[in-house]
């Protein structure tokens, strides 16, 4: 079982739709949860990170963490063509004596005008 599972997509939605991107994880040592956006042939850029269970909102983006279910989500409201990218979840925790960050494989999102 992978430590972090993420559906690779691609996910195709019409402009203005609400997008839901999800990751599950198996290691309860993960305490910090991040979402990165990666445009084609570019490096990832951090969108949001959160520590606790619950929701965190930033503009059109909402990150949700459910530690009891080991499940995290990123919601994008009023999606725009400029949101078309690959979204990577990432998690950090004390594993093997150091702070380890594990990335999901990414979900490719296409927002169609």
């Amino acid at each position, binding site marked *: 079982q992978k430590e972090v599972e993420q559906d690779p997509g691609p996910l195709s939605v019409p402009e203005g739709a609400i997008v839901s991107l999800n990751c599950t994880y198996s290691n309860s040592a993960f305490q910090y949860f991040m979402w990165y956006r990666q445009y084609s042939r570019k*490096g990832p850029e951090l969108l949001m990170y959160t520590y606790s269970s619950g929701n965190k909102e930033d503009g059109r983006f909402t990150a949700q963490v459910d530690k009891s279910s080991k499940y995290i989500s990123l919601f994008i409201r009023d999606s725009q063509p400029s949101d078309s990218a690959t979204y990577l979840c990432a998690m950090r925790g004390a594993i093997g004596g150091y702070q380890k960050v594990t990335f999901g494989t990414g979900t490719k999102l296409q927002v169609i005008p």
Partner: protein
Amino acid sequence: NAGVTQTPKFRILKIGQSMTLQCTQDMNHNYMYWYRQDPGMGLKLIYYSVGAGITDKGEVPNGYNVSRSTTEDFPLRLELAAPSQTSVYFCASSPEDRMNTEAFFGQGTRLTVV
């Protein structure tokens, strides 16, 4: 403010050749990282550094070496290139108080070993 700069952007190597991927950051971050990204595999940590003179292995260090003589620079050395090292390589940095929950990535180096 350039952020994290990687050179070269693209490179083709022959099996057995060596090369150094350059990475420099101008944000005065102590933490720096090298990742490789392969299709369907996510980002894998190769090496990381918590400050000048201090480096440590990540998840997939075999076939690579690093050095950190200054805060700004964190080069990655490939010795005896192999086809399995064909990948996209990303350098990243983060401020100490964010550790690697807030990493700033470079644009990547696409390496093909033939």
